[in-house]
């Protein structure tokens, strides 16, 4: 059984086609980079996997069952700006907030919940900062808080939306290593990114998206310049292509 199985997915937003005929499979252990320009539908694809957006056609199966909100098999790491960082809350409370839906109405976090939060913090190496207010964290630490919040549900699939944006190279490298090891621990990881270098460096597979899936393969198989010009709408002389050839 595949971790994630998308077949013939069509999504419209505001009457305009955003995604057409998306076919994408993910197995556990894979770290897949979803690359595409702004407006390519990367975030929309993640939201469709989470069943947060209405689909026009096609199916999204998560571990063999149709996707719906509130399934603990999927851990979601939205873009950093979605989170209210000036909220007066500690790192461990922010991570615990990821279990809100799981704990359920009218119930308080129990021992199992705190243990899951502790494990998630250990995993991203934030245990030493567990009591710090989230507003005092650096960009890289904030990204790790969001990853820990997703891991607090012990998901088998991890969806990361632009985790590298706005971070410096050393921080990107550390996060890339973290994602690689998370995938190696028998999770399927799907990550959208603009960052070609980080993606080629850490991903086992790359998917080029621009409304449709343009290409899907190992980084080494995607040397054809036309795939990249088609995906990003850039010219043959674009610096992007030099980068592709160099990697």
């Amino acid at each position: 059984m595949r971790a994630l199985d998308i077949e013939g997915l069509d999504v419209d937003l505001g009457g305009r086609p955003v995604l057409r005929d998306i076919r994408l499979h993910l197995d556990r252990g894979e770290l897949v980079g979803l690359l595409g320009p702004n407006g390519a539908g990367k975030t929309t694809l993640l939201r469709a996997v989470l069943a947060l957006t209405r689909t026009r056609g096609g199916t999204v199966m998560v571990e063999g069952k149709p996707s719906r909100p509130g399934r603990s098999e999927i851990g979601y790491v939205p873009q950093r700006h979605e989170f209210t960082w000036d909220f007066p809350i500690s790192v461990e409370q922010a991570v615990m907030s990821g279990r809100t839906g799981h704990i359920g109405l009218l119930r308080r976090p129990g021992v199992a919940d705190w243990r899951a939060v502790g494990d998630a913090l250990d995993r991203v190496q934030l245990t030493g900062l567990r009591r710090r207010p989230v507003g005092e964290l650096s960009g890289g630490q904030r990204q790790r808080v969001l990853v820990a919040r997703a891991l607090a549900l012990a998901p088998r699939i991890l969806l990361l939306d632009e985790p590298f944006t706005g971070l410096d190279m050393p921080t990107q490298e550390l996060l890339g290593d973290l994602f690689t090891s998370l995938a190696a621990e028998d999770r399927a990881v799907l990550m959208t990114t603009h960052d070609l270098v980080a993606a080629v460096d850490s991903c086992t597979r790359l998917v080029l998206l621009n409304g449709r899936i343009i290409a899907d393969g190992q980084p080494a198989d995607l040397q054809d310049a036309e795939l990249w010009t088609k995906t990003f709408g850039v010219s043959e002389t674009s610096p992007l292509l030099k980068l592709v050839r160099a990697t």
Partner: protein
Amino acid sequence: MSITDFLTDLLNPDLAFLPKALAIAVMSSIVCGVVGCYVVLRGMAFIGDAVAHAVFPGIAVAFVLQGSLVLGGAVAGVATALLIAIFSQNRRVKEDSIIGVFLVGAFALGIVIISRAPGYAGSLQQFLFGSITGIPDRDLYVVGGTGLVILGLVLALHKEFVAICLDREMSRAMGLSVFWLDIVLYVLVTLAVVISLQTIGNILVLALLITPAAAARLLTDRLGVMMLLAPLIGGVSATVGLYLSWSYDTPVGGTIVLVATAVFLAAWLFAPRHGLLTRRWRRPGGQEIGDDARPALSAAK
């Protein structure tokens, strides 16, 4: 007037309205302080303003029909909160514009309705600026009961309210019903506003919701502490404000709000970590906000 005189007046049976006013002012500022924390943290002060104005037509109708002002205000306020929540689902017009439309529209409706009632000028002033006389005993129970219901719901749904304040997208992914939680929160804000109208008045009630919570936010980085400090600041401001108002014969709503504002300014200047003057006085090399986990992460590679 000394504090002893004030206490004597509070116990004087001829001045029975005074302890009643104090009880209502303190109860409503405690409730507003707690609910106000969400309002301040979510940056929805404008919604608080809107429901505060939106209760006015309900109060006007209740006044004309000689019904319960609290009940009338609650109905109108909740109706407006629902309209705002529903209309703001359409993203073409932004939420703040929707609020602006309904805020003024509801207030205008209230003015038109109350202008039809005989002897409205005096009552209008009472609604707008608050008053400590003429509070029926029944209101004491209504305010107390409503306050307990509000605090109970806050306790029950706190975890969910925090989640939707923190990250709406993630809350949806977790299967929380963000729309309904929004509506419950709006309704709680409305009810907190309605029970405070009597003493504070329609114009100034927003201060009870925002000022204590904002002052508490300046004093702490912990949500739990903030939600205890805000009602404390509100309750103390209400008591001190009523005392000053009684001593110097100043309008009660305005005096309470001025006391709360003074507390806010003091917090802004002297808060332990974020105060303007505290920061200036602090010696260099005090607290460092550093990336101290990074070496650990590198070492672990």
